[in-house]
């Protein structure tokens, strides 16, 4: 299911003294089955853009096409549920959305809202809890007695239980320890690879973008300033520094090596790519000798 933005403008609180424009003439497509990363400074409009992806807000101008539904400023607020089922959003610090007595009920809450039967929802809850890496013994516990990281997992399971086609993640690993961060990112990668889920990731961590995404959109002050594959976006390290966006660790290290006279065919973005390039380089150097 593709999501297309066509000349989308968005203004907060139009016609009041607090009016604030957040998005300017956005044109972009999130392709079915892609792993898209959206990066940009705080206040660049990322979160506003996210809310357009499942019609939580409507554009003040232009159209958003989500699958076969078109959202325009005039779209009625009724019957948007089918969209919300297809596009699941994990908001920043999603642990704040837990409310039920037990973990099982909380995870089953989403599917039940979309008309899944009680038993099927309970089965989904157990399955999703396993998927996010928690033991089934947690099912009957209260979500409020869990640790922060576990609450995060339960909240994410609650969104996954809706079985969305598109999964939108707003900084899913913020505040997690390195181990938890890695596990979580690998789980999303797994969902993308095995279940063919389209993933939209908003993050400040360029390493995650380099490691996982296949399409990157760079936002600045509500406008798209660059879009393309990570290779295209990260190629110009000076541009990234100028925009204060951060550079993947591997690329930053590669740049230092370049300064010392080592050449790469293509700027490596991940540790693996860097290692491969260096290995190839050293082999070649060995043959030359």
């Amino acid at each position, binding site marked *: 299911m593709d999501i297309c933005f066509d000349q989308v403008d968005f203004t*907060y*609180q139009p016609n*009041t*003294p*607090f009016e604030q424009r957040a998005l300017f003439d956005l044109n972009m497509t999130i392709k079915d089955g892609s792993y898209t990363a959206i990066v940009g400074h705080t206040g660049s409009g990322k979160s506003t853009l996210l*809310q357009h992806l*499942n019609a*939580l807000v409507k554009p003040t101008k232009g159209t958003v096409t989500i699958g076969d539904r078109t959202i325009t400023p005039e779209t009625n607020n*009724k019957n948007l*549920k089918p969209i*919300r*089922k297809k596009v*699941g*959003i994990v*908001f*920043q610090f*999603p642990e*704040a*959305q*837990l*409310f039920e007595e037990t973990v099982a009920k909380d995870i089953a*809450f*989403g599917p039940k*809202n*979309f008309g899944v039967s009680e038993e099927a929802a309970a089965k989904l809850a157990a399955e999703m809890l396993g998927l996010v890496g928690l033991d089934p013994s947690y099912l009957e516990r209260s979500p*409020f007695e869990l640790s922060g990281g576990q609450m995060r997992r339960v909240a994410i399971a*609650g*969104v996954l239980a*809706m079985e969305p086609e598109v999964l939108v993640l707003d900084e899913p690993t913020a505040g997690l320890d390195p181990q938890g961060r890695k596990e979580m990112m690998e789980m999303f990668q797994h969902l993308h690879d095995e279940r063919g889920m389209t993933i939209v990731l908003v993050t400040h961590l360029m390493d995650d973008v380099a490691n996982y995404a296949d399409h990157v959109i760079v936002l600045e002050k509500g406008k798209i300033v660059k879009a393309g594959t990570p290779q295209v976006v990260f190629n110009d390290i000076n541009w990234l520094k100028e925009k204060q966006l951060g550079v993947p660790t591997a690329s930053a290290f590669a740049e230092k090596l370049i300064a010392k006279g080592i050449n790469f065919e293509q700027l490596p973005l991940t540790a693996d790519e860097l290692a491969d390039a260096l290995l190839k380089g050293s082999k070649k150097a060995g043959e030359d000798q």
Partner: protein
Amino acid sequence: MMNKLIFGRYIPGDSFIHTMDPRAKLIASFYFIGIIFLANNWQTYAVLAVFTLFAIFLSKVNIRFFIRGIKPLIWLILFTVALQMLFTQGGEVYFDWGIFSITEYGVINGLFIFCRFVLIIFMSTLLTLTTPPLDLSDAIEYLLRPLKVVRFPVHEVSLMLSIALRFVPTLMDETEKIMNAQRARGVDFGEGNLIQKMKAVVPLLIPLFVSSFNRAEDLATAMEARGYQGGDGRTKYRVLHWHVKDTEAMIAFALLTVILIFVRS
């Protein structure tokens, strides 16, 4: 949802009214509500209206925002006006139906009530639009000081007030965030019958309460860590200053009172 709510918000500016002492503005607003009951004929209401419009003009805030401030209350106002019109007896009778009758006095009374409401809302909107909430709580703390004599916990109340005011926008943001998160999970807010509507609020209220508890605990810890021990022996960072213009404003209100007393019938 919150977009339409203009009441209780602050618009930054540097006009005569903006730079007045918050104590003066607070006293003036309450005083205005008191003297509005002196008005009892068209001339007095005209005087009050001119005075209010002049104050709005001085604040340099667009009058549209004041009119918007009335909108949420319009039904309450109209309801009160209607009651006045239907149940006030006296004067020429225009319409009569059982216990209901529309009379000359009723119509006049209704219109007066309408004016009274609008003027009070204008004045209090003027206060909140031109005064930052923290200034307002400083002013309240200052004005409550005499109550210390009767062991009223002035410092604690004003501390709670300023913390509450500080967290109103934060809680609003939080509400919006949780609402969005739950809508993304398929909750319809404000749809269906009354019971369905009330049920839909649960996934919003519980997380809000839980996060407020957590926030309160964190804030208390942070305050203690920074050496907060209660109100005794504290100094003040924000000091209020009474200027000449504040005295002028007070004189203007005194003059208004005198005029009202002369003009009223």
